[in-house]
């Protein structure tokens, strides 16, 4: 026999010393170090107005990161989150501006439409057996095309719905604690993250997502309705993309149909930096949120320091590789 693990005596890791916790701790320390570094060396970085910028930028990427985290833990991938965000923003524009319906219709409509499109991706993967990479690559283009078609390739402005702006950019907190400005978008992001974490850790869907990502065949042979849960997972991802669409269009006060490409890669990067495994079966929402913050702090800090835009992209790439390397090292030691 090839018993590489000496089974019964293997010590159990308990409490906060698990790899997942350790990795989040490392990611968190990196985030603090980055904040410290830029505060010291980038003039004006530490100003609150700049912090608000960072939070605004994190909100969208964080929400899309959460969407893609669900899918990646199930051992899939979703390349359509960026353009799906755009498409749902356009849908909100159609409902609010073109049809003139009140705000709640726009919000719910955008999210439901995202969920519907996501479920279609899921159905292609589960029923037609198309690999997730290909199915969502196709959906990425479909969403991009539909966004342009529906909007006539022109931005849709939310001038008739002044309250739309407050989804992302106002600050409810300022009303409660005068002087402290925290953009609503960040609150939305944290709300989505908390809901997502509860679903992932406490609901039967979360349990099936981990089981699918760890060993789909064993789950199927246990009588689990694998196809249905996959469709639900991608549908949930699409629904959360709808929130992303609301955030970005609220911040820009318009649905920009040409936007969206490339956002999926930032979202996947946030998840990966936060310790979600691309081979499935493990990952956390908190990790993804920390990952999203690391990316926006880095981008913002380098910009404030006056580093050329092109170099910023290079550095982001290096950070992604370094994060996965640290993950590998931590796992080997465990």
């Amino acid at each position, binding site marked *: *026999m*090839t*018993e*590489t*693990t*000496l*089974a*019964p*005596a*293997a*010590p*159990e890791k*308990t409490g906060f010393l698990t790899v997942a916790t350790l990795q989040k701790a490392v990611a968190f320390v990196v985030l603090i170090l980055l904040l410290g570094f830029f505060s010291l060396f980038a003039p004006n970085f530490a100003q609150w107005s700049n912090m608000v910028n960072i939070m605004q930028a994190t909100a969208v990427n964080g929400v899309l990161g959460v969407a893609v985290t669900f899918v990646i833990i199930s051992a899939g991938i979703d390349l359509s989150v960026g353009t799906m965000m755009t498409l749902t923003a356009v849908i909100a524009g159609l409902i609010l501006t073109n049809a003139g319906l009140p705000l709640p219709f726009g919000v719910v409509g955008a999210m439901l439409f995202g969920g519907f499109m996501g479920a279609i991706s899921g159905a292609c993967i589960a029923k037609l057996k198309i690999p997730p990479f290909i199915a969502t690559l196709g959906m990425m283009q479909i969403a991009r095309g539909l966004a342009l078609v529906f909007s006539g390739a022109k931005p849709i402005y939310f001038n008739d719905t002044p309250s739309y702006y407050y989804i992302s950019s106002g600050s409810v907190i300022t009303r409660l604690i005068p002087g402290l400005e925290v953009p609503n978008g960040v609150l939305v992001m944290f709300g989505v993250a908390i809901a997502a974490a509860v679903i992932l850790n*406490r*609901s*039967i*869907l*979360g*349990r*099936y997502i*981990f*089981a699918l990502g*760890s*060993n789909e*065949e*064993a*789950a*199927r*042979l*246990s*009588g*689990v*309705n694998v196809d249905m849960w996959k469709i639900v997972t991608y549908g949930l991802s699409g629904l959360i993309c709808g929130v992303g669409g609301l955030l970005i269009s609220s911040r820009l006060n318009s649905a920009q149909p040409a936007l969206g490409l490339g956002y999926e890669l930032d979202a996947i990067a946030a998840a990966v930096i936060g310790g979600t495994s691309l081979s499935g*079966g*493990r990952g956390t929402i908190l990790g993804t949120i920390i990952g999203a913050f690391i990316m926006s702090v880095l981008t913002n800090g380098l910009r404030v320091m006056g580093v050329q835009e092109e170099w910023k992209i290079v550095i982001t790439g290096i950070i992604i590789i370094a994060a996965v390397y640290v993950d590998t090292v931590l796992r080997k030691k465990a």
Partner: protein
Amino acid sequence: MNVHDHSLDPKPVVELLGIEKSFPGVRALHNAHFDLRRGEVHALMGENGAGKSTLMKVLTGVYQPDAGEIRVDDAVVAMHSPQLAQGMGISIIHQELFLMNHLTAAQNIFIGREPRRGMGLFVDEAKMKADAAAIFRRMKVDIDPAGEVGEMTVARQQLVEIAKALSYEARVLVMDEPTSALNGTEVEHLFEIIRDLKAQGVGIVYITHKMDEVKRIADRITVMRDGEFIETLPAAETPMSTVISLMVGRELTDHTRASGAGAGEEVLRVSGLNRGSIIRDVSFALRKGEILGFAGLMGAGRTEVARAVFGADPVDAGEIRVHGKPCRIASPRDAVARGIAYLSEDRKHFGLVTGMSVRDNITMASWTRFTQNRIWMKDGALAEVAKEYVARLKVKTPTIAQETRLLSGGNQQKVVIAKWLLRDCDILIFDEPTRGIDVGAKSEIYEMLKELARQGKAIIVISSELEEILRLSQRILVMCEGRITGEIDGATATQESIMTLATQRDSEAA
């Protein structure tokens, strides 16, 4: 080559002395000894976790020992890497083969050290093929060096691995459970090759659980237990019961045969099951409280029948009645809903989610029952029921939060059994229930199966080990080439009567 008389050549080729090896929290090897002479087959035996594989990984440079000596030709060496070991003619053939499926046999054999031509820019394919062919001739096997490895049978792939080891001028060959995926004829062929290699002076370390193989092929037997050296014995004079008791550290009582009493009403009837040439007109019935054995050679179609009944593979035709009612089983979900469970031989891929906890694995098939408003998991209730089953089936695990990949084979099997019991399945299909499970835990699993039958479960056992079939089954169905060739009563069956039916091919049957 001349055949070596072992009594005249007692000097070992390799020697492991006082090897110590610890991993964090676990002492894997303690004072382990082993030696191998030229031209002998030395069986290394022990239960799972006894340290056999770890010791061989020390010998082949995969692990560095914490203390102890490795001697090759009487000189102490520091075995830094597998490459170094290979250079000294020490090769290992793992249980799972490491071949590149899309490359040819010759390319696999010479991977990383291809003969070159044209100033070293091109691979000399012709020479490579010729060299591979020469090795195959030496082994007296008929394999095309230009054939793609992925299209060969497992037995032939194994021969390619052996050829690869020989191409390194192997003097020491470690074989880890080489027959686990071979059928009877293929095993015979492998033994012939082993005898030839012996005659050529190659020393062979043979790791196995199968007593009859050891009896036939080994010169000496070394038994390990809990990472320690126990004893080295001459194979010819040692009764196997002695070896078993050394392995488990206690005497095993002799087997009792299953009795036919207690079988109740019919719970499952399969009629006219067909799938291409793999399943041909299979019909049988299963009664409450009985264990029905499915015997046959590898590839006879037993697993395929089980998977078809379980809805894991589609069929061309056939009717399945559960508790007398005809039903359509198109997916494992349908089967589970009707109380049918399938326990695959390959637990790591099809039985367990190894990265998840004991608790999650036991409860997985029943999660929907442990929810609030069909959404939220009742984790407290899950933990309670998992603990209950861990206690009931005596699963050895520190806690229910332990990942199942860290459990031994026997305990993993118990977790899978617990999963189906919790799901209230009353028709249990076991495919090779003790594969990869050590001797001591085997009898525990056997007792568990019998107890389940006594409690009124209907059980099918598919096994390639005749002893296991004979020991468990009240009735035995024998399959050959996709057909059921006969039914034998468990009380009167013999190994011979089963083997006769298992080899009854079409031409003979007609």
